[in-house]
């Protein structure tokens, strides 16, 4: 019985072609007949093949190392020669097979930093992106939160004034013009979402109110002191001067009758005694004061500043002087200033009406000419006036 080692001797001789002719044919016959033996031969060949390949690989690696070493030695020899000019050196570096190395003069710390940057670049990018997103999300969220909080500012004004620190940081917020329209708690069938005040512009059914009262309205109802209601539609709005002209579109409506007041086209003087009528509650409320400035919130020359205590619901009410001339339309007030209310100047209202007349669309505007109020006492004036001041109810 042959050992495996003996077989290997045989195989080696066979592969080297050192077997005698008859031995070789005998072996080949056996190989064909005996698959076990054939497998052994394959294994032997695999093994020796891999061994020699391994040997060659090692040899090749050594050769390449030698070549590389030689190349570097060459370079070292050539570099000093080429240092004559910077340009030459660079060319020589390329020619001798070494890429120019910008990393050569980098300090150790910088090298570390660079390695760190290489390794964590992606992380840092992501972090930066997240940070930027977070900042903007926070800003946006704050803004939205502030907008949502706005209605509750009414009740907080006094409190804010006491806390000096908060007041300073939030001054800009406080200085906003708080427009006077507010939900009126309803006691009847569908009282409407907002309400304001309006007054007659002509005898045949045009009315004036503030633009912000009817802003976003689906339908409008006009209600007089006698609880009579008329359906109205906006004819024209002027956002900049906070004005809206409505027209009553009701079949039952027969007209207001002759208007007792006249519209003043010029400007009124400071110190003029003025008063207004409005519906801050369910009932008509009178308030008076004087004209305190020729400009409104933040110097807006389209408005007067008046020292009349006004409340939500007064918006769109008429502002009249002592002689019963209509000089403005109440619009809003400033929260952090003592009794500073604002009213659109009647000159702007007149200009608007004139331009609408000139455009010639719809029914003509027959403005009242005479003034029946001048010279009468204030209670008398109000008695005449009260039928021409209305609640404007807004449905959304």
């Amino acid at each position, binding site marked *: 019985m042959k050992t495996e*080692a003996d077989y*290997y*001797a045989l195989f080696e001789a066979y592969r080297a072609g050192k077997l005698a002719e008859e031995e070789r044919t005998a072996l080949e016959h056996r190989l064909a007949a005996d698959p076990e033996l054939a497998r052994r031969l394959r*294994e032997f060949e695999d093994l020796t093949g891999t061994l020699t390949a*391994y040997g060659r690989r090692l040899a090749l690696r050594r050769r390449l190392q030698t070549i590389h070493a*030689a190349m570097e030695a060459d370079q070292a020899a050539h570099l000093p020669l080429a240092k004559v000019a910077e340009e030459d050196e660079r060319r020589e570096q390329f020619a001798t097979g070494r890429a120019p190395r910008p*990393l050569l003069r980098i300090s150790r710390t910088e090298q570390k930093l660079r390695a760190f940057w290489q390794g964590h670049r992606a992380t840092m990018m992501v972090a930066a992106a997240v940070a930027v997103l977070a900042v903007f999300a926070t800003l946006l969220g704050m803004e939205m939160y502030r907008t949502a909080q706005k209605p509750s500012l009414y009740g907080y004004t006094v409190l804010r004034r006491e806390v000096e620190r908060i007041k300073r940081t939030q001054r800009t917020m406080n200085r906003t013009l708080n427009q006077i329209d507010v939900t009126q708690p309803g006691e009847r069938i569908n009282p409407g979402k907002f309400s304001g005040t309006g007054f007659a512009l002509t005898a045949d059914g045009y009315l004036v109110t503030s633009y912000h009262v009817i802003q976003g309205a689906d339908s409008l109802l006009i209600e007089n002191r006698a609880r009579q209601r008329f359906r109205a539609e906006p004819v024209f709005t002027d956002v900049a001067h906070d004005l809206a002209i409505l027209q009553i579109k009701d079949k039952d409506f027969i007209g207001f009758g002759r208007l007792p007041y006249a519209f003043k086209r010029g400007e009124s003087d400071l110190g003029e005694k003025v008063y207004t009528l409005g519906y801050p509650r369910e009932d008509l409320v009178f308030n008076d004061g004087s004209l305190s400035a020729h400009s409104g919130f933040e110097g807006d020359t389209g408005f007067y500043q008046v020292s009349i205590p006004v409340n939500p619901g007064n918006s769109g009410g008429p502002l009249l002087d002592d002689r019963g001339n209509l000089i403005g339309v109440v619009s809003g007030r400033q929260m952090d200033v003592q009794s500073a209310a604002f009213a659109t100047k009647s000159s702007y209202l007149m200009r608007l009406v004139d331009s609408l007349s000139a455009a010639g669309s719809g029914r003509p505007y027959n403005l009242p000419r005479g003034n029946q109020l001048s010279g009468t006492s204030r209670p008398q004036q109000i008695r005449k006036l009260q039928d021409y001041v209305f609640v404007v109810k807004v449905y959304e």
Partner: protein
Amino acid sequence: MGKGLASYTDEEFVAAIRRDDDRALAQLYRLHFPMISHYVLQNSGTEDEAKDVYQEGVMVFYEKVRDGSLELSCQIKTYLYAVCRRLWLKRLTEKTRFGGHLDDYEPYLETGAEADLELAEERDRQLGTMSQALDLIGEPCRSLLEGFYLLDKSMQQLTAEFGYTNADNAKNQKYKCLVRLKKLFFNQYQELN
């Protein structure tokens, strides 16, 4: 290069390397090293890594040429570039957490580098197993086998070196060693697969 070295065309290179012309190999090595070195340095590698990658690439090329199985469909330069690029990409993936990021272009030519590399990898595994098996086999088998197969020493030389009484003894010893190596090698190889 202007340094008194003969310059070869691609075909001449292949022919010369097939003849095992040492000078041609050195020439080829020097010719393309700057490209790969530059490439690796640009893509967050070091000089040493460039050297390793390049040598591996040249080895793949060299062994293909020696096998006679090389079917070059592009320039040697492009082939080497493609092979080394793959190799470096693999190393980078192993090195960094975020996978290899390379700012370069992928050669759109069909270089055959991909398939060649897979074959080479298989071969690397085999040779790695062999080197492990040789590590395990112990003396004097290791020296004997290395002497015969790796260093191409003759049996007479080895007989003298190892102090055997005659060449036949040495031969018998060699066959026994081969059998042991075979067991180690195939065991390891099967474990790996």
